[in-house]
């Protein structure tokens, strides 16, 4: 809900409560929810200005340092490293001592301190010519800012940390490293934000921004672990790329089945990047598979992926999450999450992967539509779009005449528009559920 609507709703609540339209408990829950969201959106302008300001000052500091002031003595350069850090810490401390300060100040202070920390360790390593891969620097920076996430409860610092460890895991793909210097540490690093989100009592669910950051970071972590698993396995180097991709896809399938609370289940697809991003990747893969003449490479990647311990772990996790999804009646998502398993099914059935993928996509499309009529979580328009795209794809590679193709395209277009109109009318008559 947008800020003006939230504001209007909050104003109406007292009247509705007095008239008995809503109970006192319901009014309290609504007030808490929309006041929290309203606080974010109403201060959005100040917040963005504060964030941009802190980022610019921090970036300016780092760029100044990059110039390398080698005319300065070592103590002078070190003073340049520590004075901004000290100032940022004092600013943050003063805000914490005052308490109840505006959100933009808290977020700006957190980001400013994050920037000065990075600038400080950058200047020290520049002064003493300390070597090492950029990922080591990034990890040190992230870890030094992690306690700030807990202290300030600042979501932008949390986003920095979460994205930072994701980028680190991608950059830290080395064959010959000890396990604690490889992406296998990523899950433990991710646990670092647990005290902030979701909190020990699971009371702080991530907002949309943090959800997006978490999704991107988790996707990077899964891809990095998949790559690491393949590099450390005995797979021939020609199979490493394909297997890494399949394992990442398997992880993405697990990600989109991540269990949600009852409130989370009712939210729209835009509020669930952990569903949206993997769903796009999974559908892309399935559509690509419908064009495949020989499924050998797909099947080889899937079977060799499953032969690795990481692949078996992901498959196990997918099975468990699939069980939870069945319990939560998220059948539409379940049908999507099964896509990476198609090459494995193809290896035991006498059907080509192209036909299997086409059939599965048809089933996914129909499932997304039909579930809506049973009041289950679904996405009918997405289902219709999948079916339409599938018909287009099959028409494109068919040997029908252009006249036939044209008529089919028009027919599908009209059917799509009619379906859209039908769904709009249906939505007005009853609230539609979502994935």
């Amino acid at each position, binding site marked *: 809900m947008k800020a003006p609507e939230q504001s209007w709703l909050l104003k109406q609540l007292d009247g509705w409560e007095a008239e008995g339209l809503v109970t006192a408990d319901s009014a309290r829950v609504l007030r808490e929810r929309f006041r929290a969201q309203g606080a974010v959106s109403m201060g959005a302008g100040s917040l963005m200005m504060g964030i941009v300001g802190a980022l610019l000052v921090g970036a300016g500091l780092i760029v100044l340092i990059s110039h390398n002031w080698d005319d300065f003595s070592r103590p002078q350069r070190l003073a340049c490293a520590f004075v901004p850090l000290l100032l940022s810490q004092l600013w943050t401390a003063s805000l914490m001592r005052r308490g109840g300060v505006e959100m933009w100040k808290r977020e700006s202070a957190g980001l400013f301190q994050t920037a000065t920390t990075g600038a400080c360790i950058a200047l020290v390593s520049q002064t003493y010519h300390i070597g090492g891969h950029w990922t080591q620097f990034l990890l040190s920076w992230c870890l030094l800012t992690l306690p700030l996430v*807990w202290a300030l409860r600042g979501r932008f610092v949390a986003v920095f940390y979460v994205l930072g460890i994701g980028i680190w895991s991608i950059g830290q793909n080395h064959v010959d490293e000890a396990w604690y210097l490889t992406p296998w540490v990523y899950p433990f690093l991710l646990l670092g934000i647990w005290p902030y989100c979701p909190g020990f009592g699971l009371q702080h669910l991530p907002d949309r921004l943090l959800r997006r950051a978490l999704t991107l970071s988790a996707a990077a972590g899964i891809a990095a672990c998949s790559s690491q698993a393949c*590099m450390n396995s005995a797979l021939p180097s020609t199979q490493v790329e394909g297997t890494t991709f399949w394992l990442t896809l398997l992880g993405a399938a697990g990600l989109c089945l991540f269990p949600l609370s009852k409130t989370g289940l009712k939210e729209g697809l835009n509020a669930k990047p952990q569903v949206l991003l993997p769903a796009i990747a999974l559908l892309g893969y399935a559509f690509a598979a419908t064009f495949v003449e020989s499924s050998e490479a797909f099947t080889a990647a899937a079977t060799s992926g499953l032969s690795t311990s990481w692949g078996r772990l992901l498959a196990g996790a997918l099975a468990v999450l699939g069980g939870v999804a069945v319990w939560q009646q998220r059948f539409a998502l379940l049908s999507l999450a099964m896509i990476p398993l198609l090459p494995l099914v193809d290896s035991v059935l006498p059907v080509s992967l192209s036909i299997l993928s086409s059939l599965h996509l048809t089933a996914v499309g129909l499932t997304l539509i039909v579930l809506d009529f049973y009041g289950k979580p679904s996405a009918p328009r997405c289902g219709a779009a999948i079916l339409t795209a599938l018909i287009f794809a099959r028409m494109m590679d068919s040997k029908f005449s252009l006249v036939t193709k044209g008529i089919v395209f028009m027919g599908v277009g009209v059917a799509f528009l009619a379906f859209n109109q039908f769904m709009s009318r249906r939505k007005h008559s009853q609230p539609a559920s979502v994935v």
Partner: protein
Amino acid sequence: MKTALSWMSFGVACVAQWAVPLASIRAREEVLERGAVVRVAVMAPDPFDPLRGRYLRVNPKESEVVLAQEVSHLTAGKKVWVQIEKGSDGLHHLGGLTEKRPDAGDYLPMILRRAWNQGLDSGDKSLKFRVEWPVDRFYVNEILAPKADEWLRENTRGKKTVVAELRLLNGTAVITDLELDGRSFREILKQSGH
């Protein structure tokens, strides 16, 4: 309770943000003050670090080792200790390699890597490895960096050897200068009007 935890976390953050760079500074200042001078032949191209600025990548020319029998079980990725010994040419070279930290002498921790010609799929157990030196860069001023790069390229094409001067103490090394024919590259650049 919540406020106390917040302050505690903030305290941890502040202490760590000071302690990590200060520990690094202390270790390196000690090396610069008390460390032995070591001179290693290097190649030095000029890349860029977006956060820390321009630097000359210091690639010691000597980077391949053949494992002795007693350490032949070592594999790529392992950390080893390599003795740094002075040669008759006045430069320092790689010496013996051990798994445990030596008790005396000049030594550096290095990481064993597969030799360049040893593929991932080969599977053969070769005793030839590369070593990854703990010093790999020399930060320079952004104005000086391109000139230094050009000068280095001109001078490392022939038989001349660019030497990195390091200070070395208890396995920690700090680069102090790059030189050619015993003269600092800054001094040479200044005199040659670069």
